[in-house]
């Protein structure tokens, strides 16, 4: 089955350590992921801490964050496990605070240029 016939998935990484973006993208290239989108983003906790004074007294519940990066890439299903492994290699244990979360979503339709 060729790569284009495989079910496509959207891989999403929300990275709490923006300085690791380069390592993730380098790993993408190594694995064979040829494209993706990186968005500067803010987590809910950061917005609550910084922008919503009513919660100031409870700010410690929401962990400090310097902002995060959301990386999105549509890829064939066969690449998912190598990419999960890559994220763990770069970030470390994903269940630690201020590391990253990643998940996949099915891509039902796709139009546009595909590498």
């Amino acid at each position, binding site marked *: 089955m060729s790569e284009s016939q495989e079910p496509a998935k959207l891989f999403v990484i929300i990275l709490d350590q923006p300085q690791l973006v380069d*390592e993730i993208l*380098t*790993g*993408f*290239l*190594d*694995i*064979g992921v*040829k494209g993706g989108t990186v968005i500067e983003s803010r987590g809910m906790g950061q917005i609550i801490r910084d922008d919503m004074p009513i919660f100031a007294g409870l700010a410690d519940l929401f962990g400090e964050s310097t902002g995060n990066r959301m990386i999105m890439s549509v890829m064939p299903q066969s690449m998912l496990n*190598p990419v999960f*492994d*890559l994220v763990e*290699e770069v970030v470390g244990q994903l269940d630690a605070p201020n590391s990253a979360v990643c998940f996949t979503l099915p891509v039902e339709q796709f139009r546009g240029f595909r590498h």
Partner: protein
Amino acid sequence: MKLAEFIRPDLSIVLEGVESRDAFIHRVSEQFAEAIGGVDAEALAGALLEREEQGSTATPEGVALPHAMVEGLARTYVAVVLVKGGVEFRSNNVESIDVAFVIVGPRDTAWEHVRLLARIARICHAPGALGELRSANTADVLHERVIAEDGRHV
């Protein structure tokens, strides 16, 4: 992409007394041509130097990544080279390099080159990896160590 698929023991090279970047490229090209056949050493050196003239491949870590796509090859090869004492590589930002990964492949393998460059960057950025390579005293040890470092990554 595992580097191990592209590196061979006879493409693991330890050099000493290399006077210049161009001398380095010529010595490695000769060893490449002898090891893999199907490629002319002078033509290969010319292609690698042409790429270097577009912008040095030397990195601040003291690693150079010369690469070229040439006629006459059926597949891509990578040489890992340790330069004892280092060599100046005509870079504005890098004084000298002492480790090099030289990538040579057919003309239609641009994406493979990109993936290999990414792989090598990951290997070189891993803590302690360059120290392991730099402390190799023979080509065999260098080969063993680069394969070991490659194996540490997904």
